[in-house]
């Protein structure tokens, strides 16, 4: 059996060519400079080293790794060229750390039985992070300022919450009875964590991230409460969509005043106020056209959060709408890759659904917010937006997808016992 990833060298070669073409365009447009050389060396070195490490370590599930290498290289080039070439060292370093985080989280959860046995640890991590947000951020904020670096703990709550929301069939069938009512302890714990998150997001005034958490919880509920009782019929899917719509309408009706303001304000009538970022973001997309103004040729970098909240518009302005859409599709490739290699365990299927909901909802909030289809939320695009916490969190989530594609169901002890059994029978 071939122990190396499928077509690994060919795929790596293609990724190198794609990145080289982008870097060539940067040099042709912005000229040959020390920063351009730094960027070129850094991206190509990361591709090469990443490829070498993968060929030595992993035997399968190269889809997630390859897409990740492609996207991280592209994102480093994008971030280094907004308004002129300047190597985005911080983004690059966090990209590498995200790639490492992906491999580590894969190793941690690749065995679904072991990953589920570690649930008490996930609950512990959840409450440590929630405690950190309540007590260390100060002024009802979401950032912890350590002086040399700022951390956003709510980003790390996402992977932990995904781990909490996934569940195996065996866990669902382990019921307890209290006062004649049958219940599954794990389900109560998940609903409790969801309630804590809703309170936390309200307390932090970070309602933009709430849809992401609710989507993860929604998938968790669907997997736990409904799937075992009824197969996913079309009628059932319609029922779920209707429920989601009702929740949205109720949430919008009872949203705080500042959210209501954003919902009903006309950005073009308030171009210098509330609509400043969105007006510039929309104009930038229009000015970029299909193939963009050219790397470094955009003006959106002057607007606040051009490399985070409205990064889609920044990419469209400089690289064109085709490249913007292509980048989005590539990020969506990560969760979609699970469709090509379906998970073998219910716990991993739950993880994959949770990760897909995080990626899809975050991208939808960011892009639709930039395009004024929904109010501005300040949510990042995974792997593309600037931000260390978001990058690391996305890397961890990508590792879950890898685990769903390449599960390991035998522990070291199991292998030893199997070998002993083999010797005895011989």
């Amino acid at each position, binding site marked *: 059996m071939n122990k190396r990833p499928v077509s690994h060298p060919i795929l790596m070669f293609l990724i190198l060519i794609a990145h080289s073409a*982008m870097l060539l365009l940067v040099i042709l447009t912005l000229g040959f400079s020390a920063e351009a050389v730094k960027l070129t060396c850094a991206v190509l070195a990361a591709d090469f080293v990443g490829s070498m490490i993968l060929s030595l370590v992993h035997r399968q599930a190269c*889809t997630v790794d390859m897409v990740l290498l492609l996207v991280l290289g592209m994102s480093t080039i994008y971030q280094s060229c907004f308004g002129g070439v300047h190597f985005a060292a911080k983004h690059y370093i966090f990209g590498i750390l995200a790639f490492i985080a992906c491999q580590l989280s894969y190793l941690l959860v690749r065995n679904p039985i072991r990953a589920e046995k570690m649930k008490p640890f996930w609950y512990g991590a959840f409450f440590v992070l929630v405690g950190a947000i309540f007590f260390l951020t100060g002024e009802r904020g979401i950032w912890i300022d350590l002086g040399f670096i700022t951390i956003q703990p709510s980003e790390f709550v996402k992977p932990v919450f995904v781990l909490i929301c996934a569940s195996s069939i065996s866990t669902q069938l382990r019921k307890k009875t209290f006062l004649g009512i049958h219940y599954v302890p794990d389900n109560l714990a998940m609903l409790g964590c969801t309630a804590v998150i809703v309170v936390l997001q309200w307390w932090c005034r970070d309602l933009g991230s709430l849809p992401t958490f609710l989507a993860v919880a929604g998938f968790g509920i669907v997997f736990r409460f409904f799937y075992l009782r009824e197969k996913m019929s079309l009628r059932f899917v319609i029922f779920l969509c209707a429920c989601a719509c009702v929740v949205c309408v109720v949430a919008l009706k009872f949203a705080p005043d500042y959210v209501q303001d954003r919902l009903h304000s006309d950005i073009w009538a308030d171009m210098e106020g509330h609509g400043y970022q969105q007006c510039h973001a929309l104009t930038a997309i229009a000015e970029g056209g299909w193939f963009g103004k050219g790397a470094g040729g955009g003006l959106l970098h002057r607007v606040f959060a051009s490399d985070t909240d409205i990064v889609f518009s920044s990419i469209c302005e400089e690289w064109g709408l085709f490249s913007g859409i292509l980048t989005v599709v590539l990020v969506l490739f990560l969760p979609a890759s699970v469709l090509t290699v379906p998970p073998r365990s219910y716990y991993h299927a739950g993880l994959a659904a949770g990760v897909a909901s995080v990626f899809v909802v975050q991208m939808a909030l960011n892009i639709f917010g930039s395009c004024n289809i929904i109010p501005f939320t300040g949510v990042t695009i995974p792997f593309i937006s600037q931000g260390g916490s978001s990058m690391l969190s996305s890397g961890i989530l990508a590792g879950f997808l890898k685990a769903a*594609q*390449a599960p390991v169901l035998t522990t070291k002890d199991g292998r030893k016992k199997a070998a002993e059994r083999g010797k005895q029978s011989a």
Partner: protein
Amino acid sequence: MTEFFQNGQNLGELLSVFIVVFVDFCALMILLAAGRERKRGDEIWAKEAKGYMLSEHGTIYPLGAAEIIIGRHPSADIRFSDKEISRFHAILTLSDGRWHIEDLGSGSGTYVNGVRIKTPRTLHRDDEIRIGRRSLRVIKGNGKVVSQ
């Protein structure tokens, strides 16, 4: 589009088009590789699951996931409509390369080789599982790869 072709001599624009097309090509190749990876995944699964399947009078029930529910309920993986069989009757789980069977509190019980099981029990080749009036035999597939 006309304007684009008029300015098509511009190397930068041509390179932009090339990048978009080439990254698309990369994505397509990764997708094709994922398709081949699925076959490899099936092979690895067959090895992990020892190629075990359940058989009943010539009908084969593949064990394509780490948890398989046997029961009367529509969401059961191996479904029987017999009234003696509970909605969620028994569960087969794969752990450390061994298949285990556990009764889920069914009314009529689960029997392995004629003995009613009360705790999870490891399955071996040629074991006979009796659920209601059904009799399932654990067999080893002849190298056939089973997709989920």
